[in-house]
């Protein structure tokens, strides 16, 4: 019995499961854009000034594409985004000493040291806009993370996912 006949035999035996699997797959493909329905905007807070920016409007700003090994996905990924330092200057007039991030998954953190051209705000991955499922719609990554151990996720704790708001801390 060759491989093809084995595959047919298994397909016949698990007819119901195969059908269900295909159905799920079809639904996934069709519904993928629907999954991005959330997280459509980024909130920027600078003192009393609060502004909301559509995440879709940030996609055309992406002017840099690079390939990077994403330790969370365990593979090389083509990322597209823009230099975060430039974005901060554009939005806040200068680079704040610290930023307070809030993510869609309620994670929040305050980090400093953003006057660094190594940080990129990513909006697309492998040609697709980031969604919550791909830990988007906005994600901060370091373009060059040097000799850090890619098997140790704690080395990449500063990467901020699912960014919902950025507050300047002066």
């Amino acid at each position, binding site marked *: 019995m060759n491989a093809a006949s084995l595959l047919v035999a298994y397909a016949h035996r698990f007819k119901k499961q195969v059908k269900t699997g295909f159905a799920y797959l079809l*639904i*996934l493909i069709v*519904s993928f854009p629907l999954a991005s329905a*959330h997280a459509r905007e980024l909130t920027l807070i600078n003192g009393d000034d609060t502004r909301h920016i559509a995440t879709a409007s940030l996609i055309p700003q992406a002017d840099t594409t690079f390939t990077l090994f994403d330790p969370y*996905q365990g593979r090389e990924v083509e990322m597209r985004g823009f230099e975060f330092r430039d974005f901060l200057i554009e939005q806040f007039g200068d680079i704040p000493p610290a930023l307070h991030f809030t993510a869609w998954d309620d994670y929040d953190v305050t980090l400093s040291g953003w006057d660094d051209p190594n940080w990129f705000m990513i909006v697309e991955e492998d040609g697709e806009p980031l*969604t919550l*499922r791909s830990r988007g719609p906005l994600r901060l990554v370091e373009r060059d993370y040097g000799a850090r151990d890619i098997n140790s996720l*704690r080395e990449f*704790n500063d990467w901020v*996912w699912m960014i919902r708001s950025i507050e300047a801390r002066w």
Partner: protein
Amino acid sequence: MVSSNEPFEPPASVEKRSRRKRHYINWLSLSLMSFMALMLLIIYESRWVYPEIQAYFSQTGSLTGQQLATRSRAYLQRAQQTLLNEQPTSAENIEAVSLDLDLAYGLMDVSVYHQEYACTAPSILIVGSLAPRLSQGDLSAFAASGELLGPINCLTHIEMDQLDRRGVAINNFSESTRRHNQVLTYTSMIIFIMGLLFWLMHERQLRRTELATEQKLAWMKRAMRDPLTGIGNRSALHQEVLARANESLGLILVDVDFFKQYNDALGHPEGDQLLRRLANLLQKQLGPEAKLYRLGGDEFAAVLPCPNDPVLTQYCESLLSGLATEQFKHPAHPDNKCVTLSVGAVRFVAVEITFAYAYEVADKALYRVKTAGRDGWQISASA
């Protein structure tokens, strides 16, 4: 080229001394090296960090501080609660469920879970498909809630397994800590004892050296002293003059008149006794600044600070008047007198003339006294 003035030292003695010095340095070096090794060991052990334990316990408040599986499960359970409430299919609830499912999906879809846990991929498939099926009405809220049990179980399994791994890491850490502590304790003790031992050896060597130096100094002191009278000898006189270069000094030579007859009449023990008495008398009359020496037999010398000849004259007169007061009996004196002295003196500056010349001049003065009938003093013109 070796200077002819340097004392000859046998090669064996030099070798022995250099070997001793080498040992001395070695004990000290070994001791210091032991203590340094101990310090290095302690520093190394104190900075030792078990990397696995750091991976598990140094993450509080950071992105991976709480397990992604735990956070993902929390969103699935919240979605489940929403699905089981009274209005599960309202647009608002569907939106909330959809958001929770997406968040759960994002937190679960990481490489490490795919690699380690086979249930990850099918679970993600279910979580990803649920929202559209609900919104299209293909699935009841109750059924959707039921379907979430699989992914929740998967995430629970991941969490439990991660906890198990954490437990193993803790055990390993504990075991390693115990082992390191033992190594540190025993090694420290051994190195410390070695260091102490080397230090004691060094101390012993040091004391031996000190003792040898003390003995040598005592021997040198004895070699410079006249055993009969306790005052210095001829060698000590030379040392004294050398040590007082540039000073204006007086050299007084004293000779006991008819000392042989004294010995013949009263015996040598009495002669010795007379010499001791005379030494005391000289010291008493010339003062504490005068240094006395016995040059041999019945001849004494005194060296003392002397700025000019009149002072030297005073010293000589004081000497003879003191002797006259003491009235030491001399039964064999040819002139039926008590013990008398012949004194010759000179003033000199050690740098300007050699001591040998000063001695010669003073001796000539003494000789003149002798030839003039003894019991008197003369000083030569300053040398």
